[in-house]
């Protein structure tokens, strides 16, 4: 018998002790068993052998439009206008208890319904740019996103919030940092614990992000939980931030830099949510901050992680594939094995810039200390300074989008464009929790 999801069915199953009757609604499943949701709310799976199935009623009609709560939102004159651009990371989602499906929410109404506090902070406008998992992001999408951000600001948005999956949020933050010259805050936010759970970090991150988006900070930043508690979010510079934990709320850390600041969360009163800045930042209203968009990228760039014994043919492969720029994630101060050096020299000679970063993440590249390093410099490697490997990759794409002149590329890679090179190393305070 053909069963449709949503059918209400009765299953009579023969057992050793007689017949057991189950009644419920057919659920979607990947298993070969019939999965139904009982009236108690539980799902169970039943093997389709020795059963009699009877359809009681067809697909139960979905409940109509939710309530009549589509209140007309008045524009609050005293509140700033924020645009929320969604790329697929969810800050709001809804659970359908009948089917068990979880659906992310993007419309302004739905977001405000789930996180009403946002409406107290700003006049919110929601827009869906992409609905993708962040591992499916790509350079081409960064460009479209940058263009959308630019358009929103041009059209009067006083702050931008980009909701983003956390996996590649750091890359997108770096990309926007290079591509958009912004007079207003551009805040990337996401959640580490899914928005469909009451404990999700989505709402708090979004509320803190909205506060930052209304502040005088005119930079691209990531605002995410600062600790395992729901007590504060850090404001990380878009070029210095990295996801450092697979699942914990405090996954995002500034590397080779301290966070720009933090947002103290307060559930009792939105007004009490306080910002604290740790370091200098570009300010809204500064004269030189004119809106600009330089979104050209050379997408044919790659990031190669070196490991002991790694075959130098790996490098040759990318060169033959026509890659225009390569970032290496070397060991320690910035090394690959001596075997790789002729390949590096060949690439540079062909006009392919090679940038060295470190898999240590913390600290700066210095190829003048050991022989291999000196040989690499001689072969023409560009030291990536204290840049994150991922940021160096995005920057190389952007630089090659602006120029192909090798000397110019070398110069730009060493120039601090969007806070990606701190230049002056200080003792890090690593914000990992114990």
């Amino acid at each position, binding site marked *: 018998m053909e069963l449709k999801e949503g059918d209400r069915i009765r299953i009579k199953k023969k057992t050793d002790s007689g017949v*057991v009757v189950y009644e419920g609604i057919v659920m979607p499943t990947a*298993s070969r068993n019939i999965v139904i949701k009982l009236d108690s709310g*539980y799902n169970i799976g039943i093997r389709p052998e020795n059963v009699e199935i009877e359809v009681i009623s067809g697909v139960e009609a979905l409940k109509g439009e939710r309530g009549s709560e589509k209140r007309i939102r008045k524009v609050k004159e005293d509140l700033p206008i924020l645009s929320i651009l969604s790329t697929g990371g969810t800050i709001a989602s809804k659970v359908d*208890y009948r089917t*068990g499906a979880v659906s992310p929410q993007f419309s302004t109404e739905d977001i405000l319904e789930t996180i009403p506090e946002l409406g107290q902070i700003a006049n919110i406008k929601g827009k869906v740019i992409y609905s993708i998992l962040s591992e499916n992001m790509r350079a081409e999408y960064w460009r479209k996103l940058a263009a959308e951000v630019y358009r929103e600001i041009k059209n009067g948005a006083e702050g931008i919030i980009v909701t983003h999956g956390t996996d590649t949020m750091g890359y997108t933050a770096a990309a926007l940092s290079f591509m958009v010259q912004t007079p207003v805050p551009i805040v990337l936010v996401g959640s580490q614990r899914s928005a469909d759970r*009451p404990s999700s970090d989505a709402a708090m991150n979004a509320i803190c992000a909205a506060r930052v988006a209304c502040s005088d900070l005119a930079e691209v930043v990531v605002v995410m939980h600062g600790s395992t508690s729901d007590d504060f979010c850090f404001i990380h510079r878009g070029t210095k931030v990295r996801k450092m934990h697979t699942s914990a709320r405090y996954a995002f850390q500034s590397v080779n830099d301290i966070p720009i600041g933090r947002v103290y969360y307060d559930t009792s009163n939105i007004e009490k949510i306080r910002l604290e800045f740790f370091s200098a930042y570009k300010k809204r209203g500064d004269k030189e901050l004119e809106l600009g968009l330089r979104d050209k990228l050379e997408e044919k760039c790659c990031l190669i992680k070196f490991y002991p014994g790694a075959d130098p043919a790996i490098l040759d492969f990318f060169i033959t594939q026509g890659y225009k720029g390569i970032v290496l994630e070397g060991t320690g101060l910035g090394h690959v094995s001596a075997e790789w050096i002729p390949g590096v020299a060949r690439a540079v000679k062909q006009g392919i810039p090679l940038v060295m970063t470190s898999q240590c993440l913390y600290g700066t590249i210095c190829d003048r200390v050991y022989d291999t390093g000196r040989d690499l410099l001689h072969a023409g490697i560009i030291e990536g300074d204290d840049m994150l490997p991922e940021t160096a990759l995005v920057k190389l794409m952007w630089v090659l989008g602006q120029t192909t002149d090798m000397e110019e590329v070398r110069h730009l890679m060493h120039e601090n464009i969007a806070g990606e090179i701190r230049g002056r190393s200080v003792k890090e305070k690593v914000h990992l929790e114990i």
Partner: protein
Amino acid sequence: MDDHKIGLKAGLEIHQQLDTRTKLFCKCPTMLRDKKESTFSFKRYLRASKSEMGEVDEAALEEEKYSRTFIYKAYDSTCLVENDEQPPGELNPEAVDIALEVALLLNMNPVDEVHTMRKIVIDGSNTCGFQRTALVATDGGIETEEGFVGVDSLCLEEDAASKIETEGSSDAVVYSLDRLGIPLVEIGTAPDIRTADQAKKVAEQLGMILRSTGKVKRGLGTIRQDINISIEDGARVEIKGVQNLRLIGKIVENEVTRQTNLIKLREELKRRRARVERQIEDLSDIFANTTSKVIKRAGGKVFGICLRGFAGILGTEIQPGRRFGSELADFANKYGAGLMHTDELPAYGISEEEVVRLKRTFDATEDDCVVIVAAERERAEPALKAVLRRAEDAMREIPKETRRALPTGSSAYMRPLPGAARMYPETDVPPVEIDKQRLQYIKSKLPETFEHRKARYKEKFGLNDELADKISRNPHFSLFERIMESYENIPATLVVRTLTDTLAELMQEEIEVEKLEDHHFMDMFKQLSANAFGKEAVPEILKFMAKQPEMSIKKAIEEIGLRADMKEVKQLIEDIVNSKKDFVREKGAKAVGPLMGVVMKELRGKVDGKMINKILEEKVKEVMVRATSHDSE
């Protein structure tokens, strides 16, 4: 009150922790910790999830209204899963096996595929805001003396974090994470229970079946019972968190009393044409110079309402130790506001004059009742609104609700009954298919049934039908076997009587027999087997041990003064026999009977009767032999 006549229907829900090596969804040990050993703590908030209708589940929403902060204490024996910082692992197979075993023992039908669900709970007891739970089996049942009781469902779920009594600040609730994630089975019976006594027996029987697996945790807090009760014209009420089996009968009785009394109150309120005014007044002025400490502590802020026609109603007892006023106070307490009313005032340092002024504010007559709370406006208003709603309900119906069992056997309001639609799939945990071989294997290893055990006891220990039945259904059956195997000279009937009737009698005398552990019984029978005391003293020893469980049996025997030096006993009997020498010579062996009485008067409880009899026979024989030889001289 006749439970049948009033249409009592009750069902039990039993939560039993399983004794698995690791937790249900992570590799942490299932070990409870001293809260002082906590290595760090963190703070969280929870938000209610939305249902498909855009409505928040009623029970979930009610919790959110209290907007509390949760503090969690973590340990070196808890991990990121408990912190809700890491996805759960797969459903612990050891726990699934135990759940299946219990299901089979309850004649239930396991489902073919177990799906883990998320059940929304936002009181903070689960860090993620939901409890993970899976339905494992349905459609079973057990036979009881008063008929068949269906067992509708068996779920495998994770235990919640335990609440640590709030430390000072009333807004933050502190939870300990050691208990979170310990596997437990939740067994729900059908509402087939008809009397308070049956409720208690079903709970006992289920408890015993669980323990017979040898794979469940024992001790305080490892088993918790919830009871669903309704009577005709009443409402379904769920009473949660009964930790003491002995209270179950009493709780059912007290709930029946509560509902019956609420029905009476409703009729009375109707007769009086009582009504509720929604006006909340700020009464702080009246108490500007009060001597009441309760009010001073609340910063002198007092708000109140008037319940017209409610005079005397709030002071009416509806359950042992609880008046209708206590019911209303439960609602106010939810918002951290204490409640007082004119049925009980003047009291708490509130003066006669203040009461008069209170009543005057509302133009209250002697038929009315003024209810006040001492708290700032943010607490007082929602508290009084909740009280108003409850008072309105009193004129209409008995509210369906979840209540909390109190140690006295009464109960207090906890929250509304949860709605059904609070569950959605836990997508992080894959479903588990239960294959037939696995079930077959578990079936082949099931613990013995009562019937089989009973037949075995009759055969092996020569017990009669009644005693064999009694002990095979008794939770102490395995202890019985151990005693019998260890001490051959102890009669089976004595052990059965001790473990059943004697304990029941002691319980009736309010002796805390729960304090007696297996080793107490083993040691006692060891001493008895060595004739260290007489079997008549068993109840006395148990009574003593229940009071001082840390003492050794040997010491206890000395303390009670039971220990009799056998040499002294023999001497005593010899003296008695010698003093009655003439009588012995005259009656011969028949003298034993009458002399037994005399000897027992001296030694009762100190030495076993049989032993005395044996010595007495010996001594009598000696006298007789001496007499014969004397005659022949």
